[in-house]
């Protein structure tokens, strides 16, 4: 049973094609991975699923800039969401943890988390906050530090925590490991797995750096020039010679 079904998605920036006829699915309670190199359309895919692309489109339109076109269908829990605004989709449970984290820099850690919990009820927020402190204990120690003064890894933890506070049903992670050390990578991948098993939360991870992510996903896609060229379970992808040569350098 899939929670998200993307069908024949096409996204154009003016005449350049960013997503070309991509189709993919996220299973309920499973981790799905999407891998691709730079300019494969990973971030655009995330923006399109989360609805941020509509905001981009509107701003560009007002400026008289690039024309952005989105075609195709995104079914979330059987409902067409491609026309819905980002905040409405967030209310339905599609929460994006964005690339480069985008922490609220002037707010403290705890305030970042509180802002994440705007959609949550008081009990939900309290429970989630406790859970976040158990998977990322470092956040508890830094609770009153301003977001802008955290290290990259801490910011990423905070970003994931903040997204969790919004009570997602489908968590979108855009390049969660970008520029982080192997130790932090391990903490984060463990946390993602824990989130998935504890709450049965559907997670969609988009990464360029596949090596640490491949073992934890249940199903994955390889994105190239805006279309999904390859798909399979974690084992299938790891064994695939093309993936091996492209992402493991073997």
């Amino acid at each position, binding site marked *: 049973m899939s929670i998200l079904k993307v069908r024949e998605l096409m996204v154009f920036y003016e005449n350049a094609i960013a997503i070309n006829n991509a189709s993919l699915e996220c299973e309920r309670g499973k981790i799905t991975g999407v891998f691709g190199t730079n300019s494969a359309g990973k971030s655009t895919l995330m923006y399109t699923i*989360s*609805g*941020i692309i509509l*905001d981009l489109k509107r*701003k560009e339109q*007002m*400026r008289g800039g690039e024309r952005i076109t989105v075609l195709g269908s995104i079914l979330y829990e059987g409902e067409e969401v491609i026309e819905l*605004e*980002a*905040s*409405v989709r*967030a*209310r339905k449970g599609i*929460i*994006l*943890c*964005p690339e*480069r984290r*985008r*922490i*609220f*820099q*002037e*707010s403290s850690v705890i*305030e970042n988390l*509180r*802002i*994440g919990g*705007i*959609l949550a009820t008081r009990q939900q927020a309290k429970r989630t906050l406790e859970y976040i402190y158990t998977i990322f204990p470092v956040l508890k120690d830094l609770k009153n530090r301003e977001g*802008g*003064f*955290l*290290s*990259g890894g801490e*910011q990423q933890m905070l970003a994931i925590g*903040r*997204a969790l*506070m*919004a009570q997602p049903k489908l968590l979108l992670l855009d390049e969660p490991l*970008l*520029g982080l050390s192997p130790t932090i990578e391990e903490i984060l991948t463990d946390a993602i797995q824990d989130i998935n098993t504890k709450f049965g939360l559907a997670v969609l991870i988009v990464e360029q750096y596949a090596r640490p992510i491949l073992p934890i996903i249940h199903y994955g896609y390889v994105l190239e020039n805006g279309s999904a060229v390859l798909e399979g379970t974690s084992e299938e992808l790891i064994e695939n010679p093309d993936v091996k040569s492209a992402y493991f350098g073997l």
Partner: protein
Amino acid sequence: MEIIIYGTVNSVIYALIAVGFTLVYGVSRVPNFAHGSIYVLVGFLTWTFINSIHLHYAVAIVLSLLVASFLGLIIYRFVLIRLRGMATSEIIASFAVSLIILEGLRLQGIAGFKGFIGPFYVLPPFFQGKISILGVFVDYQRLIIIAACFVLVAALWIFTHYTKMGLSLRAIAQDERAAMMLGVHADKTAMLSLSIGSALAGLAAVLILPLGNITAEMGYKVLIYALAVCIIGGLGSWVGAILAAFVIGFAMKISTALFGAVWESVVLVGTIILILLVRPSGLLGKQKELEERV
């Protein structure tokens, strides 16, 4: 002693004027140049409600504040929403709204006299009388202004730190798109900020206007003071705005006492230039200090 007391009063007045402007700018990045016109409009509305419809003073104030916040909503919904993200256009559009309101009011005869035969447009003070503080006479209205400012700042601080609505305002102010990802509706929040900002302008008006006449020119003056305070304080920074209000308020009062009132506006502009020379992004403007870490 007189300098301290009246300097404080002056500073608090500037802070009151600026707080609505800085709230709107901080949240929606919309420089609301209609700020001053709403200030005057609320004064005029309150006056009309009292003198033409004969409402109670308090009722008149509440009513005109409601009108002000509704007006802010409308300005955003029908004018600014089409220009979001283009600072120059936002300034021109909101200044146009400001011109319409202020010049419209001038036609109404708000210049002070109604064709030189009409009434003065003056709001009565909340309480008549004055008391002596350490030998300086201060009227009750000025004391109310100081108290109101502190209450207002405290209320705003609690609102923005502990309520969901306030938190979403802060979220949008810092990173609009990240806030959208967490379920905050950008336009609704900006609309809310404009309506709160307008109500704050109105509140400043009903507090401050009893000290003098209501004139159309005041709208421009208020706008300039609000801008000056916000720029010195660092655009969008609330603490900075309050700090800047005190700097300007005292600078002007001290210079008036030393050299006379003629130098007031020179000192105002001089302070702005001096502070911006030392700190280009304002006293507490830190947009450029926190660089992104990767």
